[in-house]
């Protein structure tokens, strides 16, 4: 299986009057062709920034301070804007959180879809309309030819999110970055949309990078999971392994905080404290003030990313001093 997307040591800073803030701190992960990766974390952990950084769309005052992004072997982080523009919406598509906002309210669905096609391919309007109708059919929108002539406000929230997915599919991308695609939808529609993603990914061997705070959604949809905390990936592994036996204390806290049927009537577990803001990231491991297993070394030194084994035999990476065999030697 060949590597579709490889992110190496990606760092994004925001230049403010008071100095640079690091929103994304040396993030590395890889995604194989046709694979689905879930990027989870609390709000402000840097998940969305990671998504935008991959397609080099960090808006000012943010900038990519280091690292590289390889897409199908090509270093797209080094491409000029004009060249990366040809990749956006073409080979890499993005789906956003709020389906009410992402479609232009004054243009018909058809106009917007035809435009997206023509921005990347040299085709006529009728051919483009046929492709658009075909993609709408793929996301299970009935009578697509009629729907193409309608405006976004004539659709319900769930339908609009399907249309946005259809727009993302237009140029047959190899990778879809979905940034909280179901957060604005109600639970039944959420399940439908995630099923649709699964179906589409399997049909055309498309890679999916699912950015979300919802562990339940990730565990049902993805094969790999990367947990982010304060701009860093703290744990990465097969979804089943990580959800069943999390190694990093933060991931353990997250999993323990999920409501479970058998504990009906008891209080939900929670991780004490809140995630630090970017201006006040603690020294050493940024999770140490909230960590139940905190040691002296945690406040002094940033943990390196270490390989770990999961009980099922799976491999993963975790950034925590607990798993450092040399920590006692100091």
């Amino acid at each position, binding site marked *: 299986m060949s590597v579709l997307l490889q992110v190496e040591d990606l760092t994004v800073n925001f230049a403010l009057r008071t100095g640079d803030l690091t929103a994304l701190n040396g993030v590395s992960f890889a995604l194989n062709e046709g694979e689905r990766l879930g990027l989870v974390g609390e709000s402000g952990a840097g998940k969305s920034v990671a998504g935008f950084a991959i397609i080099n*769309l960090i808006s000012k005052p943010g900038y990519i301070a280091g690292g590289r992004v390889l897409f199908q072997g090509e270093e797209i982080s080094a491409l000029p804007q004009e060249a990366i523009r040809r990749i956006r919406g073409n080979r890499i*598509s993005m789906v956003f959180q709020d389906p009410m906002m*992402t*479609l*232009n*309210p*004054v243009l018909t669905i058809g106009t917007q879809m035809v*435009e*997206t096609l023509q921005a*990347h391919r040299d085709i006529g309007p009728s051919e483009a309309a046929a492709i658009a109708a075909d993609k709408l059919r793929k996301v299970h929108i009935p009578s697509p030819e009629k729907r193409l002539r309608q405006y976004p406000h004539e659709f319900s929230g769930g339908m609009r999110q399907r249309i946005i997915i259809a727009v993302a599919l237009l140029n047959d991308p190899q990778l879809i970055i979905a940034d909280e695609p179901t957060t604005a939808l109600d639970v039944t529609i959420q399940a439908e949309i995630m099923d649709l993603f699964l179906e589409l990914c399997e049909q055309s061997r498309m890679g999916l990078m699912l950015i979300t705070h919802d562990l339940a959604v990730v565990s049902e949809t993805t094969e790999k999971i990367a947990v982010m905390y304060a701009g860093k990936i703290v744990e990465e592994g097969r979804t089943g392994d990580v959800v069943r036996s999390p190694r990093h204390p933060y991931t353990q806290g997250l999993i323990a905080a999920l409501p479970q049927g058998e504990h009906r009537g008891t209080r939900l577990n929670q991780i004490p404290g809140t995630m630090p803001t970017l201006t006040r990231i603690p020294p050493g491991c940024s999770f140490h003030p909230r960590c139940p297993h905190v040691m002296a070394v945690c406040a002094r030194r940033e943990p390196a990313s270490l390989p770990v084994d999961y009980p099922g035999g799976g491999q993963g990476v975790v950034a925590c001093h607990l798993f450092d065999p040399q920590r006692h030697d100091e």
Partner: protein
Amino acid sequence: MMDHWQRFKASDLFYDFKRDKVAIVSFAVFVLLFVCAFSAPLIAPYNPYDPANIDIMSSEIPPVWMAGGMDDYILGTDAQGRDLLSTMIYGMRISIVIGLCAVLLQAVIGIVIGLIAGYYGGKLDGFFMRLADVQLSFSYLMVAIFVSAVLQAAVGVGRFAEIAVPFLIIVIGLAQWPQYARTVRASVLAEKKKEYVEAARVTGFNSHRIMWRHILPNCMSPILVLSTIQVANAVMSEAALSFLGLGMPVTRPSLGSLINAGFEYIFSGSWWITAFPGLLLVILVLAVNLLGDFLRDVLNPKLYKG
């Protein structure tokens, strides 16, 4: 075409229009005046541009219902002996042409500058907006007086009459572009933060396309409202300039220069030369303004639930 008409008939705009008597009446008045003005050669009893119709012997004839009035001249004649009704209809045509063209010029300059300033922001924005401030701090009358004085001296009064129409369009057009630029910039600033713009960028559209195809159509409501007000303003400005003798010559009078021409005769009793063109100007401007009010209420962005 039929499709568009069907869609318009089903729109909120048409629904509100049908229920607003003021809007219907002012629209009807505006259409009537517009049609009259542009079919002037067909409906006007006389051609005021034809020197054969200038007859000093028939000057200052009062309207038909007054003592001394003649059936041939329903609203009387002006100081040159031209039929006042015909002259007014031709004059209104000039007023409307200048008003519309000047607004078109304002809109083109203002929309381009506002869009660029709002979208790119930063130094470009600062430069254009200060330029707008400077522009607005000059009275357009002062600029017009200065430019027309220079032009009249340069090309001669006779030639000036020929270039008066484009001159007025340019002066009024240049004077008011900041109104458009500010309005457009304000809406662009609001629109460019919205997610559909982000989505358009993610789709790989270039800035040019995002600006013109995605942001501009979303700014159309305030532009439409402003345009109606600006048409009324431009017609008034033209009348003001012509009244001051800087606009249309008496040989090809607009409503403003007719009012001006008649002004000299008010105290000699020939009030109609000023009064009727003045009344027509008020009706025209009022109709356009009321239409603008209606549009503003219907398209009010605060009531708009996008």
